[in-house]
């Protein structure tokens, strides 16, 4: 074995050792942090559902295998046994990362009740700016094709995600009244 080969072997060994060491440390932190992250997300969902549909509703995760690619989870909202609406987790990949939004849809009218940002992949301002604009509109009457702004990529991605879930609900006859 030449000196150069030994040097390469030592370098490789050190890199693998550091990877293993950091990997173990990361696994330990992940084991502690992930349940808490899941809990925080659940609380956010709970708050969003209460704000959108009022207190006293129950929600249950649906597990269809053909959800749109932008929807990571879909929940059915029930009150007194009847379906009141749906809440979808929308993930939009835009800008520098992935942003997550919660979309509420009323089953009776088929209209969007609310859309709120949960996490922002690129910038807090992009999501917050979009959310403010949405909130100012009448329920469901959202001009998703917004003017050019720093958040235009996020807006376009969110527009596509909302359209996808609305047409999905429509296709699966989840909406009872006016179609979006």
């Amino acid at each position, binding site marked *: 074995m030449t000196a150069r080969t030994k*040097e390469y072997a*030592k*370098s490789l060994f*050190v*890199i693998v050792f*550091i*990877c293993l060491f*950091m*990997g173990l*440390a*990361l696994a330990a*932190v*992940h084991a*502690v*942090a*992930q349940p*808490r*992250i899941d809990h*925080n997300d659940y609380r956010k969902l709970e708050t969003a559902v209460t704000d959108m549909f009022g207190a006293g509703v129950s929600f249950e995760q649906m597990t269809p295998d053909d959800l749109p690619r932008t929807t990571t989870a879909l929940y059915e909202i029930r009150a007194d046994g009847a379906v009141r609406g749906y809440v979808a987790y929308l993930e939009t990949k835009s800008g*520098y*990362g992935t942003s997550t939004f919660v979309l509420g849809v009323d089953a009776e009218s088929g209209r969007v009740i609310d859309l709120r940002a949960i*996490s*922002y*992949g*690129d*910038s*807090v301002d992009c999501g917050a700016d979009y959310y403010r604009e949405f909130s100012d509109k009448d329920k469901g009457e959202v001009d998703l094709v917004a003017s050019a702004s720093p958040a235009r990529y996020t807006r376009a991605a969110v527009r596509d995600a909302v359209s996808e879930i609305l047409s999905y609900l429509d296709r699966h006859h989840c909406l009872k009244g006016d179609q979006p």
Partner: protein
Amino acid sequence: MKQSRLQCFLKGLLTENPTLVLVLGTCPTIAKSNTLFNALGLGVCTAIVLILSNVVISALRRVIPDKVRIPCYILIIAGFVTMIQMSVHAFLPTLYESLGAFIALIVVNCIILGRAEMFASKNGVLDSLLDGAGMGVGFILSLSAMALIRELFGAGQLFGYDVPFFAAYHFPILQKTFGGFLVFGIMIAVVSAVTGGKAPRRRSFDCASCPNAAVCSGAAICGESDTADKTDKEEGAQT
């Protein structure tokens, strides 16, 4: 010995402040010094990563081969940043949302890689810990001082609460990026005036101690730099 360890810690606060004297980590400094909450959060996260990476790199300095030292440092730093990111996401979600991508961007913060290369790779664990702590506290102080000025005079608030008088009379431009550069420039000027405008110099540098000496063709340049340093010192001694 104790004095030199004290100096290891204290130099990062003012004389070798990473932000205002060494002018490292400028991007997060300007981007996230718009509020005190962001500044303190980012400062503490960076300081923790700095201390931990300094300690581990110092402990492994004799094991890490010279030719792969930078990838090894990046691996260590990236690991700690991911741990901090997960922890902040889990236990401080408001701060996580507020800082956004800037927590992950600590990986490419020049202060951390700079201290790993300049200090931790050449000194013992305790000294590196003190150096990391000093530099970390220095970063927190400079970031917080900038945020204090920008939030108070730019938004009339502190930690999001209105401050009497300033709430009515403030300059919103200080909250913008332009304001960040302006305040940053003024603070560098102030610190330069306080420290006498003496940027830290390399105290000793010769080709024999350089890890790249065998493959480097710039010996003449290094020699010139060395000579220039000596000339400066001689001139300083004469005056």
